[in-house]
């Protein structure tokens, strides 16, 4: 589904990603963990070309997205992304947020988009908020809307960059629950998170990054019991 080969990314002189190689299969849920500044966000953002890789190859589905000919808009409409700070459109209603991209990018009719939007809002448990503006929602509700908004483009892959890090503790669960049920539907997911319990429970695989390198990939049960690299051991000791 996703294949990354020799991915490098620099910001000016700062080399943020160094020779990342990874493969993610269809329907797989991969959790990315690692210390702050290790390049997790940058890695994720390279996958939908919000950051342009300095070198290396990324293939998603059948498309080599790093080739110069490739249109990033097409890729982005097939890869959903959820951000730490939601980034809902404040001047649109909840339903407006969810239906905007299908209407403007795919050219879906208003009736169809509304139907899809309402279905998705029901799935994330927010049917009653369809006509509210985002500033009337709690953080957890905002993030669930953001997930519905990304799903409205019917993506093949969903990327999550610390989706619960900006939330009050009591709202983390409602968002993780939505992500769990999404995982059960067979969605291919890549999740940067500090929620180790969630990672252990939901991930098919854990990727550990440090200083721009992909240090370790492992089955979550084994990884959390005994990571094989020293760096991962140090990291887990600090966070668990």
């Amino acid at each position, binding site marked *: 589904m996703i294949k990354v080969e020799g991915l490098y990314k620099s910001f000016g002189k700062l080399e943020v990603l160094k020779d990342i190689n990874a493969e993610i299969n269809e329907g797989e849920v991969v959790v990315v963990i690692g210390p702050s500044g290790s390049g997790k966000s940058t890695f994720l953002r390279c996958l939908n070309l*919000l950051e342009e890789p300095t070198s290396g190859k990324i293939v998603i589905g059948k498309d080599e997205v790093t080739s110069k000919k490739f249109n990033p808009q097409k890729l982005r409409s097939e890869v959903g992304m959820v951000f730490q700070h939601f980034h809902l459109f404040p001047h649109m209603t909840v339903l407006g947020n969810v239906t905007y991209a299908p209407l403007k990018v795919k050219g879906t009719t208003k009736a169809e988009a509304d139907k899809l939007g309402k279905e998705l809002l029901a799935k994330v448990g927010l049917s009653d908020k369809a006509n509210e503006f985002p500033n009337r929602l709690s953080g957890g509700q905002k993030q669930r809307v953001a997930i519905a908004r990304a799903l409205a483009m019917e993506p093949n892959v969903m990327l999550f960059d610390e989706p619960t890090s900006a939330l009050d503790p009591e709202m983390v669960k409602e968002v993780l629950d939505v992500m769990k049920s999404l995982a059960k539907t067979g969605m291919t997911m890549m999740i940067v998170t500090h929620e180790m319990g969630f990672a252990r429970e939901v991930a098919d695989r854990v990727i550990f990054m440090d200083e721009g390198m992909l240090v370790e990939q492992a089955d979550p049960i084994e990884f959390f019991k005994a990571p094989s690299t020293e760096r991962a051991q140090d990291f887990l000791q600090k966070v668990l």
Partner: protein
Amino acid sequence: MNFEQIIPSMPYILQGIWVTLQIVLIAGLLGFAIGILLSFFKIGRVPFLRWFADGYTSIFRGTPLVLQLMIIYYASPQLFGVQIDAYTAAILSFALNSAAYISEIIRAGIQAVDKGQREAAMALGVPYNKMMKDVILPQGMKNILPALMNEFITLTKESAIVTVIGVTDIMRRAYIVGSDKFSFLEPLLFAGLIYYLMVLVLTFAGKWVEGRMRRSD
């Protein structure tokens, strides 16, 4: 002071309101349209257009408005090959001048919109033009409304300098009445009162629109 002597001339001065308003409105709208275009050049990805818009702004902000007005009016035969009338020259120079200020206001307003909004739209596959129109501009407009209103008020006051090329606006009419009666203070004070009231009305209108926008948040 004797205001009685100018009472018969008051309607004549008051008629200048329409002249002033017309110049300000048309020039303001034109300036707004050109300003939007220039602001897009400034934030866009084409180096030549960026350079052009920055240069344009720098020149129009860096020279006196009255100079721009006089160049466009008195030098129009050399510039355009025909003598344009004073009214057109006034509108043209005010539009071009305010476009420079308005483009800066809009650029700042657009750049003040949270970067995450742009990324969220990009991540959904929204093309640049639609993102600008549907996501960035509506939010930017909210930021820039007060500054835009200010520019409009400045334009109203500064429009008084069209009097130097003989447009019969409020200012010119007050001056004519003054020289007619050999008494300048009264008609000029009367003109001042008119300008002040116009500015007050604009200020209140701006506050009202702002309040409405805030309510829709």
